[in-house]
Protein backbone atom coordinates (compact mmCIF):
# COMPACT_ATOMS: atom_id res chain seq x y z
CA UNK A 1 0.00 0.00 0.00
CA UNK A 2 1.37 3.43 -0.82
CA UNK A 3 0.93 6.59 1.25
CA UNK A 4 -1.38 8.10 -1.33
CA UNK A 5 -3.77 5.16 -0.84
CA UNK A 6 -3.85 5.23 2.97
CA UNK A 7 -4.30 9.00 2.89
CA UNK A 8 -7.20 8.61 0.45
CA UNK A 9 -8.77 5.86 2.56
CA UNK A 10 -8.48 7.94 5.71
CA UNK A 11 -10.95 10.48 4.32
CA UNK A 12 -13.64 7.79 4.17
CA UNK A 13 -13.04 6.11 7.54
CA UNK A 14 -14.75 8.25 10.13
CA UNK A 15 -14.00 5.82 12.97
CA UNK A 16 -10.28 5.49 12.22
CA UNK A 17 -9.55 8.34 14.67
CA UNK A 18 -6.08 8.98 13.28
CA UNK A 19 -4.93 5.40 13.93
CA UNK A 20 -2.54 4.06 11.27
CA UNK A 21 -4.24 2.17 8.44
CA UNK A 22 -2.72 -1.27 7.87
CA UNK A 23 -3.46 -4.07 5.41
CA UNK A 24 -5.72 -5.67 8.02
CA UNK A 25 -7.77 -2.55 8.71
CA UNK A 26 -11.44 -3.56 8.51
CA UNK A 27 -12.98 -0.92 6.24
CA UNK A 28 -16.62 -1.44 7.26
CA UNK A 29 -15.79 -1.46 10.96
CA UNK A 30 -13.90 1.80 10.44
CA UNK A 31 -16.95 3.42 8.91
CA UNK A 32 -17.07 2.70 5.18
CA UNK A 33 -20.72 2.44 4.14
CA UNK A 34 -22.18 1.57 0.74
CA UNK A 35 -22.48 5.17 -0.46
CA UNK A 36 -18.92 5.91 0.58
CA UNK A 37 -17.74 2.73 -1.14
CA UNK A 38 -18.88 4.23 -4.42
CA UNK A 39 -17.26 7.59 -3.77
CA UNK A 40 -14.08 5.79 -2.70
CA UNK A 41 -14.20 3.71 -5.87
CA UNK A 42 -14.47 6.82 -8.04
CA UNK A 43 -11.60 8.46 -6.12
CA UNK A 44 -9.42 5.36 -6.61
CA UNK A 45 -10.20 5.18 -10.31
CA UNK A 46 -9.35 8.88 -10.74
CA UNK A 47 -6.19 8.70 -8.64
CA UNK A 48 -4.72 5.54 -10.13
CA UNK A 49 -6.21 5.74 -13.61
CA UNK A 50 -7.56 2.20 -13.28
CA UNK A 51 -11.01 0.72 -13.62
CA UNK A 52 -11.91 -2.05 -11.17
CA UNK A 53 -13.77 -4.86 -12.92
CA UNK A 54 -17.47 -5.41 -12.10
CA UNK A 55 -16.57 -8.78 -10.59
CA UNK A 56 -14.55 -7.01 -7.90
CA UNK A 57 -17.50 -5.13 -6.42
CA UNK A 58 -18.37 -7.65 -3.69
CA UNK A 59 -17.75 -7.47 0.06
CA UNK A 60 -14.44 -9.34 -0.30
CA UNK A 61 -12.84 -6.46 -2.23
CA UNK A 62 -13.99 -3.82 0.23
CA UNK A 63 -13.27 -5.95 3.34
CA UNK A 64 -9.87 -4.60 4.33
CA UNK A 65 -7.40 -1.97 3.17
CA UNK A 66 -5.19 -4.82 1.92
CA UNK A 67 -7.92 -6.52 -0.12
CA UNK A 68 -8.86 -3.25 -1.79
CA UNK A 69 -5.21 -2.43 -2.49
CA UNK A 70 -4.70 -5.84 -4.13
CA UNK A 71 -7.72 -5.22 -6.39
CA UNK A 72 -6.20 -1.88 -7.43
CA UNK A 73 -2.80 -3.49 -8.06
CA UNK A 74 -4.40 -6.25 -10.14
CA UNK A 75 -6.42 -3.75 -12.17
CA UNK A 76 -3.31 -1.61 -12.66
CA UNK A 77 -1.27 -4.57 -13.89
CA UNK A 78 -4.04 -5.50 -16.32
CA UNK A 79 -4.37 -1.96 -17.68
Amino acid sequence: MDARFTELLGKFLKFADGKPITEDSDLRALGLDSMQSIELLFAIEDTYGVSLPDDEMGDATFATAGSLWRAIATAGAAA
Partner: protein
Amino acid sequence: MNELVDQVVQVAERHVARADRDAVFPVEALAELRRTRLLGLLVPAEYGGLGGTLADVVDVGIKLGRTDMSLSMIFVMHCQQVAAVVRHAHEPFRADLLKRIGQGQVYLASVTTEAGKGGHLRSAESALSGDTALAVDRFAPIVTGGAHADGFLITMRSPDADSPNQVSLVYADRDQLEVTASGDWQPMGMRASHSVPMKLVGSVPGEQVIGEHGAFGDIATTIFAPLAHLGWSAAWLGTAAGALSRVLRMIRGKEGRDRFDIKSELLLTRLSTARQRLDGVHALLRRAEHVVATAPDLSQPVNQLLLNALKITAAEQCHAAVNDLVDAVGLRHGYLKDSPTRLELALRDLRSAALNYSNDRLHLADGRLALLDPEVRFV
Protein backbone atom coordinates in the same frame (compact mmCIF):
# COMPACT_ATOMS: atom_id res chain seq x y z
CA MET B 1 -44.51 -31.97 4.20
CA ASN B 2 -47.65 -30.79 2.39
CA GLU B 3 -49.77 -32.76 4.86
CA LEU B 4 -48.06 -31.08 7.79
CA VAL B 5 -48.68 -27.64 6.31
CA ASP B 6 -52.32 -28.55 5.64
CA GLN B 7 -52.75 -29.34 9.32
CA VAL B 8 -51.40 -25.93 10.28
CA VAL B 9 -53.57 -24.25 7.65
CA GLN B 10 -56.72 -25.91 8.98
CA VAL B 11 -56.06 -24.56 12.44
CA ALA B 12 -55.08 -21.14 11.09
CA GLU B 13 -58.31 -20.92 9.06
CA ARG B 14 -60.35 -21.28 12.22
CA HIS B 15 -58.60 -18.44 14.00
CA VAL B 16 -57.58 -15.98 11.27
CA ALA B 17 -60.58 -13.66 11.61
CA ARG B 18 -60.34 -13.43 15.39
CA ALA B 19 -56.55 -12.94 15.41
CA ASP B 20 -57.01 -10.06 12.97
CA ARG B 21 -59.94 -8.53 14.84
CA ASP B 22 -58.23 -8.67 18.23
CA ALA B 23 -54.66 -8.03 16.93
CA VAL B 24 -53.38 -11.07 18.80
CA PHE B 25 -50.67 -13.57 17.97
CA PRO B 26 -51.92 -16.79 16.29
CA VAL B 27 -51.05 -18.98 19.29
CA GLU B 28 -53.12 -21.94 18.07
CA ALA B 29 -51.33 -21.98 14.70
CA LEU B 30 -47.96 -21.65 16.44
CA ALA B 31 -48.83 -24.65 18.61
CA GLU B 32 -49.57 -26.56 15.41
CA LEU B 33 -46.24 -25.44 13.89
CA ARG B 34 -44.59 -26.88 17.00
CA ARG B 35 -46.61 -30.13 16.95
CA THR B 36 -45.93 -30.77 13.25
CA ARG B 37 -42.23 -29.91 13.82
CA LEU B 38 -42.45 -27.40 11.00
CA LEU B 39 -40.65 -25.00 13.34
CA GLY B 40 -37.70 -27.31 12.72
CA LEU B 41 -38.09 -27.27 8.94
CA LEU B 42 -34.51 -26.06 8.41
CA VAL B 43 -32.99 -28.14 11.21
CA PRO B 44 -30.87 -30.95 9.71
CA ALA B 45 -32.32 -34.45 10.16
CA GLU B 46 -29.36 -35.53 12.33
CA TYR B 47 -30.65 -33.12 15.00
CA GLY B 48 -34.22 -34.37 14.69
CA GLY B 49 -35.37 -31.68 12.26
CA LEU B 50 -37.19 -32.00 8.97
CA GLY B 51 -33.99 -31.28 7.02
CA GLY B 52 -35.79 -28.91 4.65
CA THR B 53 -34.30 -26.60 2.04
CA LEU B 54 -34.70 -22.97 1.12
CA ALA B 55 -37.21 -24.06 -1.54
CA ASP B 56 -39.24 -25.74 1.21
CA VAL B 57 -39.31 -22.51 3.22
CA VAL B 58 -40.59 -20.66 0.16
CA ASP B 59 -43.22 -23.35 -0.50
CA VAL B 60 -44.48 -23.32 3.09
CA GLY B 61 -44.38 -19.51 3.17
CA ILE B 62 -46.62 -19.31 0.10
CA LYS B 63 -48.97 -21.93 1.47
CA LEU B 64 -49.39 -20.32 4.87
CA GLY B 65 -49.74 -16.90 3.23
CA ARG B 66 -52.77 -18.12 1.31
CA THR B 67 -54.58 -18.29 4.64
CA ASP B 68 -52.84 -15.79 6.91
CA MET B 69 -50.08 -13.39 5.93
CA SER B 70 -49.16 -12.67 9.57
CA LEU B 71 -48.67 -16.38 10.26
CA SER B 72 -46.58 -16.80 7.13
CA MET B 73 -44.37 -13.85 8.05
CA ILE B 74 -43.94 -15.26 11.57
CA PHE B 75 -42.92 -18.61 10.09
CA VAL B 76 -40.47 -17.39 7.45
CA MET B 77 -38.77 -15.01 9.87
CA HIS B 78 -38.36 -17.86 12.35
CA CYS B 79 -36.75 -19.93 9.56
CA GLN B 80 -34.39 -17.05 8.82
CA GLN B 81 -33.22 -17.17 12.44
CA VAL B 82 -32.85 -20.96 12.36
CA ALA B 83 -30.72 -20.72 9.20
CA ALA B 84 -28.31 -18.43 11.03
CA VAL B 85 -28.06 -20.91 13.92
CA VAL B 86 -27.51 -23.85 11.54
CA ARG B 87 -24.73 -22.09 9.65
CA HIS B 88 -22.99 -20.02 12.33
CA ALA B 89 -23.67 -21.17 15.92
CA HIS B 90 -20.76 -22.79 17.75
CA GLU B 91 -20.74 -26.35 19.08
CA PRO B 92 -21.76 -27.74 21.52
CA PHE B 93 -24.33 -24.97 21.99
CA ARG B 94 -25.40 -25.32 18.35
CA ALA B 95 -26.35 -29.00 18.57
CA ASP B 96 -28.30 -28.45 21.78
CA LEU B 97 -30.29 -25.52 20.39
CA LEU B 98 -30.96 -27.25 17.05
CA LYS B 99 -32.33 -30.32 18.86
CA ARG B 100 -34.71 -28.12 20.82
CA ILE B 101 -35.84 -26.29 17.67
CA GLY B 102 -36.23 -29.62 15.86
CA GLN B 103 -38.56 -30.79 18.62
CA GLY B 104 -40.70 -27.70 18.20
CA GLN B 105 -39.71 -26.31 21.60
CA VAL B 106 -38.14 -23.07 20.41
CA TYR B 107 -39.87 -20.35 18.44
CA LEU B 108 -37.24 -17.74 17.60
CA ALA B 109 -37.84 -14.01 17.35
CA SER B 110 -35.47 -11.54 15.79
CA VAL B 111 -34.28 -8.43 17.57
CA THR B 112 -32.58 -6.33 14.91
CA THR B 113 -34.48 -3.04 15.00
CA GLU B 114 -33.24 -0.25 17.19
CA ALA B 115 -34.45 3.26 17.87
CA GLY B 116 -32.78 5.68 15.47
CA LYS B 117 -31.60 3.17 12.88
CA GLY B 118 -34.85 1.47 11.85
CA GLY B 119 -34.19 -1.89 10.26
CA HIS B 120 -30.64 -1.09 9.19
CA LEU B 121 -28.91 -4.38 9.88
CA ARG B 122 -25.28 -3.46 9.76
CA SER B 123 -25.03 -1.09 12.68
CA ALA B 124 -25.95 -1.18 16.34
CA GLU B 125 -26.01 1.34 19.17
CA SER B 126 -26.47 -0.83 22.29
CA ALA B 127 -23.26 -2.68 23.08
CA LEU B 128 -22.61 -6.09 24.56
CA SER B 129 -20.21 -6.12 27.45
CA GLY B 130 -18.19 -8.85 29.09
CA ASP B 131 -16.21 -11.80 27.81
CA THR B 132 -17.17 -15.22 29.23
CA ALA B 133 -20.60 -13.86 30.15
CA LEU B 134 -22.17 -11.27 27.89
CA ALA B 135 -24.42 -8.64 29.39
CA VAL B 136 -27.43 -7.87 27.21
CA ASP B 137 -29.35 -4.64 27.66
CA ARG B 138 -31.35 -3.85 24.58
CA PHE B 139 -34.49 -1.98 23.57
CA ALA B 140 -36.12 -2.78 20.23
CA PRO B 141 -39.07 -0.82 18.82
CA ILE B 142 -40.45 -3.80 16.85
CA VAL B 143 -40.15 -7.48 17.74
CA THR B 144 -42.55 -9.67 15.77
CA GLY B 145 -43.94 -12.36 18.05
CA GLY B 146 -41.65 -11.23 20.84
CA ALA B 147 -44.24 -11.82 23.54
CA HIS B 148 -44.50 -15.49 22.50
CA ALA B 149 -40.91 -16.30 21.53
CA ASP B 150 -38.91 -18.91 23.43
CA GLY B 151 -35.60 -17.48 22.26
CA PHE B 152 -34.22 -14.36 20.66
CA LEU B 153 -31.45 -13.62 18.18
CA ILE B 154 -30.27 -10.16 19.07
CA THR B 155 -27.94 -7.83 17.22
CA MET B 156 -25.75 -5.65 19.43
CA ARG B 157 -22.56 -3.72 19.08
CA SER B 158 -19.61 -6.06 19.74
CA PRO B 159 -17.79 -5.85 23.07
CA ASP B 160 -14.97 -3.29 22.84
CA ALA B 161 -16.10 -2.21 19.36
CA ASP B 162 -14.49 0.87 17.85
CA SER B 163 -17.57 1.73 15.78
CA PRO B 164 -21.32 1.00 15.52
CA ASN B 165 -20.53 -1.07 12.41
CA GLN B 166 -18.98 -3.87 14.49
CA VAL B 167 -22.08 -5.89 15.21
CA SER B 168 -22.45 -9.28 16.88
CA LEU B 169 -25.41 -11.64 16.82
CA VAL B 170 -26.18 -13.34 20.11
CA TYR B 171 -28.77 -15.91 21.14
CA ALA B 172 -30.69 -15.67 24.38
CA ASP B 173 -33.28 -18.02 25.85
CA ARG B 174 -36.33 -16.28 27.21
CA ASP B 175 -35.42 -17.46 30.72
CA GLN B 176 -31.97 -15.88 30.41
CA LEU B 177 -33.60 -12.48 30.04
CA GLU B 178 -35.90 -10.17 31.80
CA VAL B 179 -38.35 -9.43 29.00
CA THR B 180 -40.62 -6.42 29.11
CA ALA B 181 -43.07 -5.90 26.26
CA SER B 182 -44.40 -2.39 26.20
CA GLY B 183 -46.87 -0.41 24.18
CA ASP B 184 -50.05 -1.29 22.36
CA TRP B 185 -50.23 -2.99 18.96
CA GLN B 186 -53.00 -1.54 16.81
CA PRO B 187 -51.82 -1.55 13.19
CA MET B 188 -53.81 -1.33 9.94
CA GLY B 189 -52.84 -4.85 8.89
CA MET B 190 -50.47 -7.66 9.85
CA ARG B 191 -52.39 -7.51 13.09
CA ALA B 192 -51.72 -11.12 14.09
CA SER B 193 -47.96 -10.60 13.81
CA HIS B 194 -48.10 -8.87 17.20
CA SER B 195 -44.94 -6.81 16.65
CA VAL B 196 -44.38 -4.96 19.88
CA PRO B 197 -41.62 -2.84 21.41
CA MET B 198 -39.48 -4.84 23.83
CA LYS B 199 -36.83 -4.33 26.43
CA LEU B 200 -34.45 -7.25 26.96
CA VAL B 201 -32.04 -7.35 29.89
CA GLY B 202 -29.93 -10.29 31.00
CA SER B 203 -26.72 -12.20 30.64
CA VAL B 204 -25.75 -15.07 28.34
CA PRO B 205 -22.65 -17.29 28.11
CA GLY B 206 -20.08 -16.23 25.52
CA GLU B 207 -20.66 -19.47 23.57
CA GLN B 208 -24.08 -18.16 22.56
CA VAL B 209 -22.59 -15.70 20.08
CA ILE B 210 -23.68 -16.73 16.58
CA GLY B 211 -20.65 -16.49 14.31
CA GLU B 212 -17.69 -14.36 15.35
CA HIS B 213 -17.89 -11.08 17.24
CA GLY B 214 -18.21 -8.20 14.81
CA ALA B 215 -18.99 -10.48 11.87
CA PHE B 216 -22.76 -10.05 11.76
CA GLY B 217 -22.40 -8.09 8.51
CA ASP B 218 -21.52 -11.33 6.73
CA ILE B 219 -24.52 -13.13 8.26
CA ALA B 220 -26.70 -10.22 7.15
CA THR B 221 -25.46 -10.51 3.56
CA THR B 222 -25.50 -14.28 3.27
CA ILE B 223 -28.50 -15.23 5.42
CA PHE B 224 -30.63 -12.50 6.99
CA ALA B 225 -31.21 -10.30 3.94
CA PRO B 226 -31.65 -13.09 1.37
CA LEU B 227 -33.95 -15.17 3.57
CA ALA B 228 -35.94 -12.08 4.56
CA HIS B 229 -36.53 -11.12 0.95
CA LEU B 230 -37.33 -14.67 -0.16
CA GLY B 231 -39.50 -15.40 2.86
CA TRP B 232 -41.41 -12.12 2.83
CA SER B 233 -41.99 -12.36 -0.91
CA ALA B 234 -43.30 -15.90 -0.46
CA ALA B 235 -45.69 -14.71 2.27
CA TRP B 236 -46.92 -11.82 0.10
CA LEU B 237 -47.28 -13.97 -3.01
CA GLY B 238 -49.21 -16.54 -0.99
CA THR B 239 -51.48 -13.84 0.42
CA ALA B 240 -52.32 -12.48 -3.03
CA ALA B 241 -52.63 -15.99 -4.52
CA GLY B 242 -55.06 -16.97 -1.75
CA ALA B 243 -57.09 -13.83 -2.42
CA LEU B 244 -57.20 -14.47 -6.17
CA SER B 245 -58.10 -18.11 -5.60
CA ARG B 246 -61.02 -17.22 -3.32
CA VAL B 247 -62.26 -14.65 -5.86
CA LEU B 248 -62.06 -17.15 -8.74
CA ARG B 249 -63.87 -19.84 -6.74
CA MET B 250 -66.58 -17.39 -5.82
CA ILE B 251 -67.05 -16.21 -9.42
CA ARG B 252 -67.16 -19.79 -10.66
CA GLY B 253 -69.64 -20.89 -7.98
CA LYS B 254 -73.39 -21.06 -8.62
CA GLU B 255 -74.16 -17.81 -6.82
CA GLY B 256 -71.17 -16.10 -8.39
CA ARG B 257 -72.22 -16.99 -11.90
CA ASP B 258 -75.53 -15.28 -11.23
CA ARG B 259 -73.88 -12.21 -9.80
CA PHE B 260 -70.91 -11.79 -12.16
CA ASP B 261 -70.93 -11.62 -15.95
CA ILE B 262 -67.98 -13.78 -16.90
CA LYS B 263 -68.17 -12.45 -20.45
CA SER B 264 -67.45 -8.96 -19.15
CA GLU B 265 -64.24 -7.86 -20.82
CA LEU B 266 -63.48 -5.59 -17.89
CA LEU B 267 -63.79 -8.46 -15.38
CA LEU B 268 -61.72 -10.80 -17.56
CA THR B 269 -59.02 -8.19 -18.01
CA ARG B 270 -58.87 -7.52 -14.28
CA LEU B 271 -58.55 -11.22 -13.49
CA SER B 272 -55.86 -11.51 -16.14
CA THR B 273 -53.90 -8.57 -14.76
CA ALA B 274 -53.99 -9.95 -11.21
CA ARG B 275 -52.83 -13.35 -12.40
CA GLN B 276 -50.10 -11.79 -14.57
CA ARG B 277 -48.74 -9.83 -11.61
CA LEU B 278 -48.52 -12.99 -9.50
CA ASP B 279 -46.86 -15.06 -12.21
CA GLY B 280 -44.24 -12.33 -12.57
CA VAL B 281 -43.54 -12.33 -8.83
CA HIS B 282 -43.46 -16.12 -8.73
CA ALA B 283 -40.89 -16.32 -11.54
CA LEU B 284 -38.70 -13.73 -9.86
CA LEU B 285 -39.05 -15.47 -6.50
CA ARG B 286 -37.97 -18.86 -7.89
CA ARG B 287 -35.08 -17.29 -9.77
CA ALA B 288 -33.87 -15.48 -6.65
CA GLU B 289 -34.26 -18.69 -4.63
CA HIS B 290 -32.00 -20.47 -7.13
CA VAL B 291 -29.41 -17.68 -7.00
CA VAL B 292 -29.35 -17.71 -3.19
CA ALA B 293 -28.90 -21.49 -3.19
CA THR B 294 -26.09 -21.51 -5.76
CA ALA B 295 -24.28 -18.13 -6.00
CA PRO B 296 -20.74 -18.28 -4.58
CA ASP B 297 -20.80 -14.62 -3.44
CA LEU B 298 -24.14 -13.04 -2.60
CA SER B 299 -22.45 -9.71 -1.86
CA GLN B 300 -21.86 -9.14 -5.59
CA PRO B 301 -24.04 -6.27 -6.83
CA VAL B 302 -25.80 -8.39 -9.47
CA ASN B 303 -27.03 -10.78 -6.77
CA GLN B 304 -27.98 -8.00 -4.36
CA LEU B 305 -29.87 -6.22 -7.13
CA LEU B 306 -31.88 -9.33 -7.94
CA LEU B 307 -32.82 -9.93 -4.31
CA ASN B 308 -33.80 -6.32 -3.76
CA ALA B 309 -35.77 -6.30 -7.01
CA LEU B 310 -37.64 -9.35 -5.77
CA LYS B 311 -38.59 -7.64 -2.52
CA ILE B 312 -39.64 -4.37 -4.16
CA THR B 313 -41.53 -6.10 -6.98
CA ALA B 314 -43.31 -8.59 -4.72
CA ALA B 315 -44.38 -5.81 -2.35
CA GLU B 316 -45.75 -3.67 -5.18
CA GLN B 317 -47.28 -6.35 -7.38
CA CYS B 318 -48.94 -8.49 -4.70
CA HIS B 319 -50.61 -5.42 -3.22
CA ALA B 320 -51.59 -4.17 -6.67
CA ALA B 321 -53.07 -7.56 -7.62
CA VAL B 322 -55.38 -7.58 -4.60
CA ASN B 323 -56.24 -3.93 -5.17
CA ASP B 324 -57.28 -4.84 -8.74
CA LEU B 325 -59.45 -7.61 -7.37
CA VAL B 326 -61.34 -5.17 -5.16
CA ASP B 327 -62.38 -3.33 -8.33
CA ALA B 328 -63.09 -6.61 -10.09
CA VAL B 329 -65.64 -7.83 -7.55
CA GLY B 330 -66.91 -4.50 -6.21
CA LEU B 331 -68.13 -3.24 -2.87
CA ARG B 332 -69.88 -6.30 -1.49
CA HIS B 333 -67.07 -8.80 -2.00
CA GLY B 334 -64.13 -6.42 -2.33
CA TYR B 335 -64.63 -4.10 0.58
CA LEU B 336 -66.70 -5.77 3.28
CA LYS B 337 -64.97 -7.66 6.07
CA ASP B 338 -67.36 -10.61 6.04
CA SER B 339 -66.91 -11.52 2.36
CA PRO B 340 -65.49 -15.03 1.90
CA THR B 341 -62.92 -13.48 -0.48
CA ARG B 342 -61.20 -11.82 2.53
CA LEU B 343 -59.86 -9.17 0.13
CA GLU B 344 -60.27 -6.53 2.82
CA LEU B 345 -57.86 -8.36 5.14
CA ALA B 346 -55.41 -9.25 2.35
CA LEU B 347 -55.26 -5.65 1.16
CA ARG B 348 -54.63 -4.27 4.66
CA ASP B 349 -51.99 -6.92 5.32
CA LEU B 350 -50.24 -6.35 1.98
CA ARG B 351 -50.13 -2.59 2.49
CA SER B 352 -47.32 -3.26 4.96
CA ALA B 353 -45.16 -4.98 2.34
CA ALA B 354 -43.68 -1.81 0.84
CA LEU B 355 -43.00 -0.47 4.35
CA ASN B 356 -41.44 -3.60 5.82
CA TYR B 357 -37.80 -2.67 5.19
CA SER B 358 -39.03 0.20 3.09
CA ASN B 359 -39.00 0.07 -0.69
CA ASP B 360 -37.86 3.70 -0.68
CA ARG B 361 -34.69 2.72 1.15
CA LEU B 362 -34.10 -0.32 -1.04
CA HIS B 363 -34.36 1.85 -4.14
CA LEU B 364 -31.54 4.03 -2.77
CA ALA B 365 -29.43 0.92 -2.20
CA ASP B 366 -30.26 -0.34 -5.67
CA GLY B 367 -29.31 2.96 -7.25
CA ARG B 368 -25.89 2.67 -5.64
CA LEU B 369 -25.58 -0.99 -6.65
CA ALA B 370 -26.56 -0.15 -10.23
CA LEU B 371 -23.61 2.23 -10.39
CA LEU B 372 -21.34 -0.68 -9.43
CA ASP B 373 -22.54 -2.75 -12.40
CA PRO B 374 -22.18 -0.41 -15.39
CA GLU B 375 -22.26 -3.32 -17.83
CA VAL B 376 -25.75 -4.22 -16.55
CA ARG B 377 -25.32 -7.96 -16.20
CA PHE B 378 -28.09 -10.34 -15.21
CA VAL B 379 -28.08 -13.45 -13.03
